[in-house]
């Protein structure tokens, strides 16, 4: 675990999208913090607000229709939400960097990858172009690109998906950020390449002592790469704790069901999977009370009326948003 120095502190963040059909509460009161050297995984299904949370932290929510309606995002003690757009630009790619799911669309197809890394370096360091190019090749080497001097003059389409993601990481690391946000960084990649990229991210994290916000839907990745986990459902964090706590003794029925619904490679063939009935709620009109109650097998009348708060369950780092509180006991 990290040194305890808090890099990112998000408090009661809420981001709404104003669509013709109504107001979508994509992020609705999310709080978490990440210390130096720690990886927090934000887990959830599509539409749960995990990407919107990441974009809100970087203030990249498309506006309109998106709007950060309340909350605070502090990076190293500095409030990001009150910065001007120009100041924010120097934060993005500076102290906080982000990599995306699809590296092909994030790279500009008409420039060589070397030129794009040089651009990223020069945006934050007043270096001359030759120096920046040397630095770029060093960075490409660092992210594990073989013969980086030659690859630097390739165009993005000449590289494989894994290599492109490495280039994205090189660009993100150009200014030695304190916070790296990785939004589904390996979803578009093959499983063997995914393992390489995850290894790369964690070794770079160790070297630069970064805080990492890892956004994913895959509990396998969480198990492998995360120190702490926050599970999101319908715009809210429903459970948060250390990776071991959440994965091994989930306290929220949703977390529990999500983990059990995914087949595990070590389980024998034909193992029955637990399925969660229904589909994620429409955030235009989320259900009253606990947002998970329509799909929850343990829902009581109380769950339909009262919205539960996040409360400590078991240890003091483990919190869950369930009316049953810490009282949820599982047989195993």
């Amino acid at each position, binding site marked *: 675990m990290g040194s305890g120095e808090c890099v990112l502190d998000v408090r009661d963040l809420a981001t709404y999208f104003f669509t013709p059909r109504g107001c979508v509460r994509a992020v609705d009161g999310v709080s978490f913090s990440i210390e130096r050297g720690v990886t927090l995984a934000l887990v959830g299904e599509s539409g749960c607000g995990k990407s919107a949370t990441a974009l809100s932290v970087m203030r990249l929510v498309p*506006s309109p229709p998106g709007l*950060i309606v309340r909350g605070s995002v502090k990076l190293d003690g500095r409030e990001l939400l009150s910065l001007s757009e120009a100041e924010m630009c120097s934060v993005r790619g500076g102290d906080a960097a982000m990599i995306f799911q699809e590296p092909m669309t994030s790279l500009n197809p008409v420039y060589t990858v070397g030129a794009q890394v040089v651009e990223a370096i020069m945006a934050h360091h007043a270096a001359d172009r030759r120096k920046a190019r040397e630095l770029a090749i060093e960075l490409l080497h660092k992210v594990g690109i073989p013969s980086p001097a030659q690859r630097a003059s390739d165009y993005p389409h000449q590289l494989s998906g894994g290599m492109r993601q490495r280039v994205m990481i090189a660009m993100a690391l150009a200014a030695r950020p304190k916070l790296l946000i990785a939004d589904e960084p390996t979803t578009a990649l093959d499983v063997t390449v995914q393992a390489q990229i995850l290894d790369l991210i964690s070794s770079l994290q160790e070297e630069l002592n970064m805080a990492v916000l890892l956004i994913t839907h895959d509990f396998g990745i969480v198990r492998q790469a995360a120190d702490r986990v926050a599970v999101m459902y319908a715009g809210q964090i429903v459970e948060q704790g250390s990776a071991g706590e959440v994965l091994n003794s989930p306290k929220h029925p949703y977390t529990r069901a999500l983990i059990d619904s995914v087949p595990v490679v070590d389980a024998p063939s034909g193992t029955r999977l637990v399925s969660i009935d229904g589909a994620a709620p429409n955030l235009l009109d989320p259900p009253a009370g606990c947002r998970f109650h329509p799909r929850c097998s343990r829902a009581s009348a109380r769950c339909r009326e009262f919205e539960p708060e996040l409360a400590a369950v078991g240890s003091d780092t483990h919190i869950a948003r369930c009316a049953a509180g810490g009282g949820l006991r599982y047989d195993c």
Partner: protein
Amino acid sequence: MNVLKRMWRLPRGRIGICITVAVVLVAVFAPLLAPYNPYDIDQRDARRMRPGRGHWLGTDAFGNDILSKLIYGARVSLIVGLCTGLAVTVVGTFMGILAGYTGGWVDTVIMRACDVIFVVPGLPLMILLANYLGTKFYMIIVIFTVLGWAGMARMIRSQVLSVRSRDFVAASRSIGASKWHIMAEHILVSVSPLMIVNGVLNAAGVMVAEAGLSFLGFGDPTAISWGKMLFEAQSGHALLFGAWWWVVPPGLAIFVTVFGFMMAGYALEEVLNPHIPRRQAFSAMRRQMRKFAAGRGTCATAAVAGGAAAGTGGSRQGGVTRG
């Protein structure tokens, strides 16, 4: 019907429908609406009369009532426009689907034919054909169709190529469906919005082209059309006499009709392809956002009326914060 209703909700759809319906009604009921017989030359010896009582839009050099000519002229413009639009749509769609879905030499032959039509200069060919085939208005329809199907075919073909690679076509093939079944069941319905919208816009374009051909004196000499009225105004030295009422009414009629068709066409496009973000929906969203940012609105009141879902486009600026 549903489509018309949804078009009516859009301002441009309403304008388009109103104008189109009005022009059609005028054309259909021309004999009832026209105060005089426009073919009746030398009416009561009233040549070159200014607009006024009796002749609201004046008379031309032969004494024909301009208003009556204008009303009858709607018939030719509409018939030529609609018939050509229909013919171009049918021929172009058929050729486009055949070329796009069949591929191979069929595709090559059809596309090379399109290329030939594209590189041939249109206007001289039209004039040439008009001279050979005669200038009866149905011949004009044939000429416009021959020159017009290629653009439609090309557009439909490119759409077919993208639809063809979709999984539902593979699904249909995997159940043993024949080529003709797939073209009719899947390809045609997929290209139909493009087909209808472009058919309507094509009709508008043909109306302008027909006016142009008539203006040059290659229109049907026996029928009154708005283009021919302009031609007569030109040959009768309207500007020399300062006879604006010879020029303005037919010009305005062409403009308004084509404008109406275009508006209807664009509205149709918006209704049939709901993925195009709606501008007014965005502005309503912006208003709601500003209200929210000012602390006046609540999420419940922020619900904006409007049917179609808008995309989440827009500029990538930082969000406005209330703090």
